[in-house]
């Protein structure tokens, strides 16, 4: 049985709740946005106090916290940068993720922060990696367009940590080379204001400016990325960190995706010879995101199958039914906070980092006043449900996947 060094599993966290869930579900590290200067200006993000709390929590689990400071600077942001970097350092974070080289320089000058280079620099060759290594960058988040051959060449020629995306939404354009949001909605894509114009529909016109009529309108929209099938190949390449995209994603999404990739990494690294690809995992990931996900540039598969002609309507996920707050082994009832409507007779699955997935029917629900009820319809309503097997705090209840 060959054991292999495991890569870091890196998860996004839009707030403290998601940070904790990501780590509990098996992330080795999380990346978060601070109070400003990050590319998700419209996510809730973290205050300095919340960063400190998140770091303390993560370190108890031997996990790391990276803070994104990955905007492209304009003059006015330069003034706040020095103080901001010092404040981030005081939070005891494990690294910062930056895109603008001026931030590298300032971080080196005024702090001892470890520096990771953001994917916004779209780095995919050994020469660029060599440059940033000399600049003191510890890790490079490679471009989403990076291929197997690029990664292999970098691993063989540059002694630098590399991080690659394994799952989540893809920019249609080269990161940093898209300002559609600026021009069409006056929101600065490279300072966190991206309004996702790539998901809009357009009319494609011919040379005479007549509409070329396909069954659906033209869009830039790309399907999500899923590297599930190629995780063993990526591990064998020696990639330092596997990154999941999605600081705006829900607790359910984070828990599900982290949980699946944790299993795949562990299964492969703990017993390479007997590793088998699990199709069930693919099904779970597909259901969780409600968006098609494919392999894209890794093996040059950036073809028509990566384009997403689904219109802008995306159904929000209703599978997430609730989160376990507590469990009473004597009564076998779990205290649950509701996230979506469920009722007696529903087929459910309960999963978490410390249990094998439980499949069961809901046979009994008790409300906060001790009354038996049939339906849980109120958001965040606290109820108790009878479970077939013991469950634990932070286990997640979802509809049974068909």
């Amino acid at each position, binding site marked *: 049985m060959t054991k292999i060094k495991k890569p870091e599993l890196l998860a996004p966290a839009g707030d403290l709740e998601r940070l904790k869930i990501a780590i509990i579900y098996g992330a080795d590290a999380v990346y978060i946005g601070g109070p400003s200067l990050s590319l998700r*200006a*419209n996510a809730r993000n973290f205050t300095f106090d919340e960063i400190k709390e998140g770091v303390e929590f993560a370190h108890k689990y031997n996990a790391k916290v990276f803070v994104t400071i990955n*905007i*492209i*600077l*304009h*003059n006015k*942001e*330069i003034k706040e*940068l020095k103080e901001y970097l010092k404040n981030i350092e005081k939070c005891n974070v494990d690294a910062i993720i930056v895109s*603008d*080289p*001026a931030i590298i320089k300032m971080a080196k000058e005024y702090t001892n922060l470890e520096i990771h280079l953001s994917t916004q620099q*779209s780095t*995919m*060759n050994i*020469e*660029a990696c060599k*440059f*940033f290594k*000399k600049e003191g960058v510890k890790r490079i988040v490679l*471009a989403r*367009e*990076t291929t197997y*051959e*690029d990664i292999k060449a970098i691993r063989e020629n540059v002694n630098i940590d590399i991080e690659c995306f394994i799952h989540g939404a893809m920019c*249609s*354009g*080269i990161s*940093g*080379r*898209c*300002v*559609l949001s*600026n*021009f*069409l909605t*006056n*929101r600065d894509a*490279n*300072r966190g*204001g991206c309004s996702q114009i790539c998901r*809009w529909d*357009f009319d*494609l*016109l*011919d*040379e005479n*400016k007549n509409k*070329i009529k*396909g069954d*659906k309108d*033209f869009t*830039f929209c790309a399907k999500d990325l899923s590297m599930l099938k190629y995780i063993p190949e990526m591990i064998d390449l020696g990639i330092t960190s596997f990154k999941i995209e999605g600081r705006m994603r829900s607790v359910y999404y984070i828990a599900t995706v982290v949980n699946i990739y944790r299993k795949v990494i562990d299964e492969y690294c703990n017993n390479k010879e007997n590793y088998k690809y699990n199709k069930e995992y693919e099904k779970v990931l597909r259901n969780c995101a409600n968006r098609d996900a494919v392999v894209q540039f890794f093996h040059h598969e*950036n*073809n*028509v199958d*990566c*384009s997403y*002609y689904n219109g802008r309507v995306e159904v929000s996920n209703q599978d997430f039914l609730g989160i376990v707050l507590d469990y009473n082994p004597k009564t076998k009832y779990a205290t649950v906070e509701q996230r979506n409507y469920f009722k007696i007779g529903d087929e459910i699955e309960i999963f978490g980092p410390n249990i094998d997935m439980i499949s069961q029917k809901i046979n009994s629900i008790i409300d906060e006043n001790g009354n038996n009820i049939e339906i849980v319809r109120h958001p965040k309503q606290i109820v108790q449900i009878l479970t077939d097997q013991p469950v634990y705090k932070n286990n997640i209840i979802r509809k049974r996947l068909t």
Partner: protein
Amino acid sequence: MSKLVTIIKDEKQIEDLLEYSDAFIIGVKDLSVNMPIYFEMDEVKKINKKIKENNKELFISLNKNFHTNELPKLKEVLIEIESLNIAGILFYDIGIVNLKQELNLKTNLVWNQEHATTNFATANYWHEHNVNYMILSNEITLNEIEEIKENTNIELMVNILGYTPMFTSERKLISNYKEKFNLNNNNSKYYLHKENNIYHLIEDKNVTTMYSSGILNAYNEYLILKSKINYFILNSFEIDNEIFKKIIISIKNEQTSEEEINKLLVNTTKNFLHKETIYKVKKYDKD
């Protein structure tokens, strides 16, 4: 005295504009993107000769993002360019900065990361790394341009005329659409249409690029900046050659006005010269 720099779209244009344009920017096949035309190195050498004979400057754009398998060709071209004694190489990929150091090249570099050239601190960073010029982003304000000028010694280049590339992708987005819906029509040009705006959409072997609907006309700003900044860029992409020539002559001689130029072009714009972009639109309790 400030210089006018033209991004050309055919070789003949060089001949036509030699008298009025002080410098030219050209692309190299498979090493440049978002250029109206790309040349083989043999052609580049001939163009350089012609430009030199007329005491004008040549800049070569190598502004692609490079995969590792493209590096051998890039190195070869960088070494070839070294003997041409040109004014500078435009780069997007930082690999070029490393290659300049490692190959001990002397040719000047022009930082041209399109949308990232937005502040003086990063300008100074690249200047300290032996980068000589910087083409300013089309997404900053006139005030920001002036502030950058006041705080850096890197040579600045400012776009004053032409369409702006807004989106560059490695994906073949037109081909994908046609394949998906079994559309067989081959067109010499494609456009996108949205809310009464028409955008040029170009797909070639390397990238798909979408351009702004409006043509930047920053003549008034040129008049304000010309005493402080040395290089002003005019992009001839999709502008009729005769009209372009007329415009560059009138700018050179300062015998025009913004309104006159507007009359010659369809749908002009100021981009963000007087309009700051925003990026935070939601507020939370803690804010």
